[in-house]
């Protein structure tokens, strides 16, 4: 462009410029046209569109970051849920074990009580049996003694005195006890 400027300012031979129609008015007119286009495109196309692209890029980056965060939180929640389920399972198993142990203990206790009660009942029955036996044995002794006295009296034909009756009864009793 220097030659153009120099040529115009110094009025040098302008054959080349004349041949290609280069002159200041047309040059400036075309320059202004291009500058107007530059200004309009910059003002109404590049700036708003590049700002928009940047805004979209920023939002996409934010969305991706949020999605990543949500993913991580979801993974944490999943992990926590699994942990809670595992803990609940453990607690449930513990409760079942405790219940089972308690039931076992209670069953054992009741069994022991039943055994004790049964043993007590058996002891009572045995005691009662012994008492009945003793009583029956006493009654038997007495009856045998009476029968011995009566038999002796009938056999001997004499009336036995109370002392004889007592003595016979004691001897019979001794022999029965032996």
């Amino acid at each position, binding site marked *: *462009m*220097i*030659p*153009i400027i120099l040529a115009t300012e110094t009025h040098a031979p302008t054959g080349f410029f*004349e*041949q*290609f*129609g*280069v*002159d200041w*008015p*047309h*040059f*400036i*007119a*075309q*320059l202004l*046209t*291009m*500058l*107007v*286009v*530059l200004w*309009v*495109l*910059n003002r*109404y*196309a*590049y700036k*708003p*569109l*590049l700002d*928009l*692209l940047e*805004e*979209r890029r920023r*939002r996409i980056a934010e969305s991706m970051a949020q999605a990543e965060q949500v993913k991580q939180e979801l993974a944490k929640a999943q992990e926590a849920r699994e942990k809670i389920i595992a803990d609940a399972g453990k607690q449930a198993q513990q409760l079942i074990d405790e219940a089972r142990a308690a039931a076992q203990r209670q069953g054992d206790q009741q069994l022991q009580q039943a055994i004790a009660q049964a043993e007590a009942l058996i002891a009572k029955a045995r005691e009662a049996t012994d008492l009945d036996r003793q009583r029956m044995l006493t009654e038997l002794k007495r009856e045998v003694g009476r029968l011995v006295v009566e038999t002796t009296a009938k056999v001997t034909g004499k009336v036995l005195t109370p002392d004889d009756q007592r003595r016979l009864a004691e001897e019979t009793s001794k022999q029965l006890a032996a």
Partner: protein
Amino acid sequence: MRAYSRALFRSFSMTAEHAIPTFAEPLFHIGPLPVTNSMVVAWIVALGLIALVQAGTRKVQLLPGGLQNFLEFVVEGLHDLLEGIIGPEFVKRTFPFLATVFIFILACNWTGLIPGFATIGWGHATEHGFKVTTPLLRPANADVNMTGAMALTFTVLWCVWYYQAHGAGGAINHLFGTKGGMKGAAWWMLLPFFIFVGLLELVSIFFVRPLGLTIRLYGNIYAGDNLLEAMAGVIPAPFSAITMLPFYFLELIVGVVQALVFMLLCAAFTTAAIMHEEEGH
């Protein structure tokens, strides 16, 4: 007086007489300013882009649809491409210009392929048929004023970015200072060479690069226009469409490639300028 005519598919012989003019022709005047056919096209393209952008970004929504989706695709694609070349920090400053250059050049190039460009206009009858001498519409980039304006704008912006990257002292040191961490006698011995290299770099920055950007884009678009014009004249109309069609597709590709080349060269020059800062110069 110029005669107005429509000659969309006209027979045309490949002679220098029938080549499209190398310069944009004035159509009318607005005050003292002569308005050329390429200026009209540049204004149409500019208005089209402005309308497109306004329609697409009137109600910008986070969930895009339709036109906003398309604009986002273009802007994001260019931004990612340039960010990969220039880096995430400096792309914020350079993106508006570089993206605009690409979009505007591409729009101008493809607009220039619409039938009617260079074939509708004022002219006169010749023995080969009607010859359009002043087309009503001319591709905006087939005008050195347009490509030169973009190259000059880049050169000015490049200086601003260079200053922002290095500062005044750093820029001078970067241009003329000795490289390679030399000290002592070697530094003094090599200083004249590096000053000479700096001067060459200045010539490159302020002359070669802008001229290259200007002529490359202009030359490709102007040549493409001439190519289509020549193909239209190989066989008589309407059969000339057969010879033109392959070159239409070629010019569609050339339109994208040239827009990309202009933008990528600007990006490469900028990257080369700011990369030195990161290397510690």
